[in-house]
């Protein structure tokens, strides 16, 4: 059940410890395991994790929880509570589990542990730094080198005669939630961009995310136009969208995908937002993709947790699952992304994608569409670039959505938008098991460190803030961990296929609940690890390599010595029995 977090543990320790991790306190507790009943153990708190080891159980029960996953700590029972194990702490986690510890009632024994936990789990609320700033791990790879915006745009063939790189946002003066480097139409001046920014929510102007190598059709991302109740128009914005349309010599209309449901887009007018109306944008076609807002998604995941933790809903599993709407949201997000990808690919038409602010649903749609269109993003490195680019650099508010180190567990800004994206990727990898270079463990590891605060990768809301906090200098990148041990995260079935558009089927017939993630704490549901199919294939690969080596040896021996010297290698028939029985 422990979080598998790498090999950098210092040896000869009674508990695992990362370089830079310091012990704070420890205490005898009873872990109220929802699956195996009360477990007597000792809990160790460090500045990074909560670690519990049972004292009586065989095999030993271990809990290894980075404090970053803690969302809420509550005291249960009082000094006068009766009943066994009724006094202690209740911990709600962000990764689909709750932990409950019972302590001795005498002498307010939980007070200090509660305080220590609260302090280190919510450093932001206590003017403390994230553990990422104390982490002294060493990796052979430097994950901060993975994403370089200029090289990524070059890989896409940019800049070219229609698209240019602008440094207008170098000091984040145009838009404080955008990256410093932006790609915009060649025919739009920096002055034009400033005027457009005035008409887009939070100045998030339409900029290029991806360009089709053949059709030159592009995916643009932005926020909603500030139309408002009075139906304001902005000539510069209108002209700018027309420049985008013309950039690939396109005669047909520009397609705008508004990720929201129609009614929400209309409702946004009341607060100054809105959508591109037909009158103002005669050369554009607008479609609503009906994806709900962050609050709906948060509620949906909460409902999902209710039916899978601690116990999986026994009867009426399917209708319970349906009532959480989680997979229906996944279906809508995937459907939207398919439409975007299809428009760019077979429709050969440029698209503009936005929602309200362009950092939640928009990021989901553009990154998923790019994953469908561009096989580079289906590699380990490519996917890291995709996350780094579309999510981290374009200001998905990780700090607010996850609530890193923040004690306000009920904050309405929190929402599992990125988790939903990773789930969509998992659904795609499930439907196309040979199309992705990375495996399920890669996705789960990303999600684990989305919360852990061991790496700087997902900290803070924007590139501006990350630069201010010197994240790249002072913390390590999650990609360092992953790229240093790449084989662990690699899918052996991966078959490189260039230029193949990958459309998942966004049907409930194929969408499944990601059991290995959402129900992984339940020992009754746990899947076999390692995956036997994968393991078998790896064995075959090893066998093939062995054969190739032996064959080469044999050929050398046979060529050099004509005499029939007996070879030391095993006979083929022995090798064959290995093929069939090696499990």
């Amino acid at each position, binding site marked *: 059940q422990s979080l598998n977090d790498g090999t950098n543990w210092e040896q000869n320790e009674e508990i695992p410890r990362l370089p830079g991790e310091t012990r704070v306190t420890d205490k005898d507790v009873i872990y109220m395991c929802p699956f195996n009943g009360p477990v007597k153990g000792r809990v160790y708190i460090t500045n990074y994790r909560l670690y519990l080891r049972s004292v009586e159980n065989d095999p030993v029960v271990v809990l290894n929880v980075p404090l970053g996953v803690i969302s809420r700590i509550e005291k249960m029972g009082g000094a006068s509570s009766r009943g066994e194990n009724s006094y202690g702490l209740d911990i709600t986690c962000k990764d689909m589990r709750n932990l409950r510890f019972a302590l001795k009632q005498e002498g307010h024994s939980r007070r200090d542990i509660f305080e220590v936990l609260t302090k280190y789990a919510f450093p932001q609320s206590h003017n403390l730094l994230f553990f990422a700033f104390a982490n002294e791990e060493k990796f052979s790879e430097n994950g901060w080198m993975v994403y370089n915006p200029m090289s990524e745009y070059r890989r896409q063939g940019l800049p070219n005669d229609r698209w240019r790189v602008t440094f207008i946002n170098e000091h984040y003066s145009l838009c404080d939630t955008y990256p410093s480097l932006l790609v915009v139409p060649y025919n739009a001046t920096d002055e034009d961009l400033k005027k457009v920014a005035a008409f887009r929510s939070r100045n998030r102007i339409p900029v290029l995310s991806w360009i089709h190598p053949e059709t030159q059709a592009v995916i643009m991302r932005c926020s909603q136009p500030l139309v408002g109740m009075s139906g304001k128009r902005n000539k510069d914005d209108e002209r700018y969208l027309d420049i985008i349309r013309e950039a690939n010599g396109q005669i047909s209309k520009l397609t705008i995908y508004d990720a929201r449901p129609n009614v929400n887009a209309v409702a946004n007018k009341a607060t100054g937002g809105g959508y591109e109306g037909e009158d103002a944008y005669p050369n554009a076609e607008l479609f609503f993709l009906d994806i709900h807002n962050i609050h709906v998604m948060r509620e949906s995941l909460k409902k999902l947790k209710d039916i899978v933790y601690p116990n999986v809903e026994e009867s009426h599993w*399917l209708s319970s699952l349906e009532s959480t709407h989680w997979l229906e949201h996944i279906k809508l997000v995937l459907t939207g992304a398919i439409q975007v990808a299809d428009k760019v690919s077979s429709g050969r038409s440029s698209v503009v994608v936005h929602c309200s602010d362009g950092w939640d649903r928009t990021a989901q749609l553009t990154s998923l569409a790019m994953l469908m269109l561009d096989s580079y993003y289906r590699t380990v490195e490519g996917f890291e670039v995709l996350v780094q680019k579309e999510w981290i650099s374009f200001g998905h508010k990780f700090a607010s959505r996850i609530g890193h180190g923040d004690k306000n567990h009920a904050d309405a800004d929190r929402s599992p938008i990125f988790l939903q994206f990773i789930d969509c990727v998992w659904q795609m990898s499930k439907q196309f098991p040979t199309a992705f270079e990375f495996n399920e463990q890669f996705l789960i590891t990303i999600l684990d460190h989305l919360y852990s605060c061991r790496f700087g990768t997902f900290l803070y809301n924007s590139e501006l803030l990350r630069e201010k906090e010197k994240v790249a200098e002072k913390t390590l990148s999650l990609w360092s961990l992953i790229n240093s041990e790449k084989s662990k995260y690699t899918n052996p079935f991966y078959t490189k296929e260039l230029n193949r558009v990958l459309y998942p089927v966004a049907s409930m017939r194929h969408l499944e609940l990601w059991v290995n993630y959402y129900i992984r704490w339940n020992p009754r549901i746990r899947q076999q690890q390692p995956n036997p199919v994968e393991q078998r294939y790896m064995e075959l690969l090893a066998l093939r390599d062995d054969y190739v080596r032996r064959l080469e040896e044999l050929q050398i021996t046979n060529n050099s010595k004509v005499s029939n010297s007996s070879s030391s290698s095993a006979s083929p028939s022995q090798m064959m029995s290995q093929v069939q029985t090696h499990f």
Partner: protein
Amino acid sequence: TDGRNQTVMFDTLEDWRYELERTKGNVKYKAVTTNEGYRVSEKLPLYFVVPICISEESILKYEGRGIPIWCWSCHNGAALLKMSAFPKEQDDSTSQMQKAFLDGIYKTISKPPYELLKTEDLSSSLPSLQDIQTAYTRFKQLFLIDNSTDFWATDVKWFSLLESTNWLEIIRRVLKKAIEVAECLERQHTNVLLIEESATDLCCVISSLVQVMMDSYSRTKSGFQSLIQKEWVIGGHGFLDRCNHLHKSDKDEAPVFLLLLNCVWQLVQQYPPAFEFTETYLTVLSDSLYVPIFSTFFFNSQHQKDINTSGESLKIQSGPFRFLTVWDWSVQFDPKAQAFLNNPLYAEKPKPDKSQRKTARFKHQRQLSLPLTQTKSSTKRGFFREETDYLIKNILGKTIGKFINSSDESPNSFREFYDSWHSKPVDYHGLLLPRIDGPEIKVWAQRYLRWIPEAQLPGGGTIATTAKILELMEEVQSLQVKMDEEHNQGTFGDVHSVPMLRNSARLSSLFPFALLQRQSVKPALPTSTWKDLEDEEDLVKRDDEFVDLGGEML
């Protein structure tokens, strides 16, 4: 290879004796010839197996009813038995006589050397055939889709539609029952007697499943085929009526055999390396149920087959009427297609020779490490019952009460067995228990989605990985041939390699049942999506952030 040669047909005494020997059931059970010429019953096979102590007279007395018939023996000696129950009798004296008869039978087989006996009345603890038929009819309806609009319209409420058919729930209950039976045999060393009116429907499902779970031989292709012969074809499952082949009357129709295949499929997809056959094998087997050139699944009983294939048919002008067995797969498929029936992931059972003794020792690891709540050394001899056991309650009455041990079984015994097994690594050649929690029971997508173009995944699905494995195996085999050549410094003329798929990267998930149907590269797009969130109206209307943009800009 020709499956016919390996499949045991169970139409001879030798076949039964061989099976007794294989399972080491021959100490306590014997194959009998009492039914030669169908003296006992036309419903029973010519040869079958009963406890040694059962006399010929008792078998003859009620046409085989009330007689425990052997299905299989577990490695610890506990046996799986089935019995055809007496129908409810209005006449008091008749039921008294039947009661006394059963009393005698139970007394006989509860003495040493027999293990404790647990009876399991399937008609009261499992859904009725009518329920099964109703559920499957509804389930099947979900996959009969006319057009794309239909597909997407039903997609919106797919999970609740699926649940309302009850089909997956029935699969879950059947699997659960099979685990309960396995627990009795494996952990409690108790004989289990399955009881059903005819002993040819749910008895077949449960006894087959238990054997698939407990006997790794039943997970090989020939072993599974032999099992189907034993329990279903010779066992007297009424295929003709249940499949309604002649469309004479709907009232006896029930997809009992399909229910078994659906349950086995759950195991196949949960434990891919444990089976010699693939899901494709199960799919084509299920299709063969309705291919009328085979006699295998055509008749209600061995007797019915005999009279139709030998006696009367001889009068037909065209000479002896010959049916084929479905197990000869070469009739339906060329060798290339047959390759899809064999699981490339299957890990053959290690042979206990010198070099592999180490592996062999681990074979029963799981079985030995199970906590034994009731062991063989128990001094109590007799049998006990479940509270639900209608038969004993109503027919045997008090007379039998003294033989019934109060059940030591706690309600958690099943859960404990299930959890304890699942907490250990899987031995693919040992006991295999299905996972039965809600998310684990799935729709057999290959069988039910294969004709629906919207559900197609071009280049995707499990076939994508299977193709990769086959490709690699082919490569390994050709390397072996090259090695042989190098060793012998000569060339062999005939290179034997398994027929494989070439250029497999773009096989569709519907392969091998349908070729790419969507010619264009257009994605399948839902035409009807769900938007309704009545219960969350307030959330839906909220904005992502509470910032008034209008004010900001003015």
